[in-house]
């Protein structure tokens, strides 16, 4: 089955390739951040990226992936906190009623290029 990481990998490859071409430089590392709902599995995304990058300027690149927690706004005390989905409780007042904030998007944060 084509996992959703494949679509992410393809989109990532075309973004990085465009940046590399603009600078005529070899990309080495890409840093990515994502939210919970992006459901990105690091191993699967790296594997998918390796596969689509084969034979391109991005072959052999490393991906570093930062996962951002979902945030909630406590309805009792208005505290904004990282929602631990297994036990979602406000750390300030112990309230259990909260409004889920929009999940973090999948973002290509930065690319490191080789100077050679």
């Amino acid at each position, binding site marked *: 089955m084509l996992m959703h990481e494949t679509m992410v990998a393809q989109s990532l490859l075309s*973004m990085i390739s465009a*940046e590399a071409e603009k600078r005529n430089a070899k990309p080495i590392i890409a840093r990515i951040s994502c939210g919970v709902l*992006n459901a990105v599995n690091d191993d699967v995304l790296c594997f998918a990226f390796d596969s689509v990058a084969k034979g391109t300027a991005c072959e052999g690149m490393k991906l570093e992936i930062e996962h951002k927690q979902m945030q909630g706004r406590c309805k009792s005390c208005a505290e904004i906190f990282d929602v631990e989905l297994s036990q979602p409780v406000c750390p300030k007042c112990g309230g259990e009623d909260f409004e889920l904030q929009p999940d973090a998007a999948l973002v290509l944060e930065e690319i490191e290029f080789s100077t050679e």
Partner: protein
Amino acid sequence: MYKVEIGKKILSANEEYAAKNSRLLAEQGKLCLNMISSPGSGKTTILVRTINELKGKIKIGVIEGDIQTDIDAKRIQATGAPAVQINTDGACHLSAAQVSSGLEKLPLADLDLVFIENVGNLICPSAFELGETAKVVVLSVPEGDDKPAKYPAIFAKSKVLLINKIDLLGAQMQVDFNLERAKTDAHKLNKSIEILPISAKTGEGMADWYNWLVEAIKNIRSD
């Protein structure tokens, strides 16, 4: 080595299509529900019964997402409702671009409600906004009452939880499913989620679902 800051969204193409779908639906005042569940939870059966029982009251169209085959679209079309089948050719979710082309093929102006039946999967579809009004998650009794705890993201993001196949509850059926546990776990993640236990087979509980739909359509029109 040198670093270059980029700060661009990776799935921006999907988001643009989702925004376009959302605008189109809002302009025309249509309710659009993205139905997400594991394979075999009974999504299509729920839709078929809903369409049949609301005939003459609510006009419904369906975008069917499946990896392959048009089995589901044919089941919907047999009710007389318009249905568009989208085959994802191996992908585990529908994308907003696919929904966009699905919406173009439906007689949208004549409809009150569009159901998007996503590919059966509790994980990946939550990663792709489609421009829908709301997500509806379906959990069927044989899957087990631990699913809200094990797949929290989709339960946290859905407006409605339909607990289907409740006709299988009861000692003589030998299906272990604690309705209260599933409800408590889902509520922990999402206080405002509407939880409706139903059986699309026997019709039990379906009236509450229809009432929810009627209200949601009213709310869309008054917005």
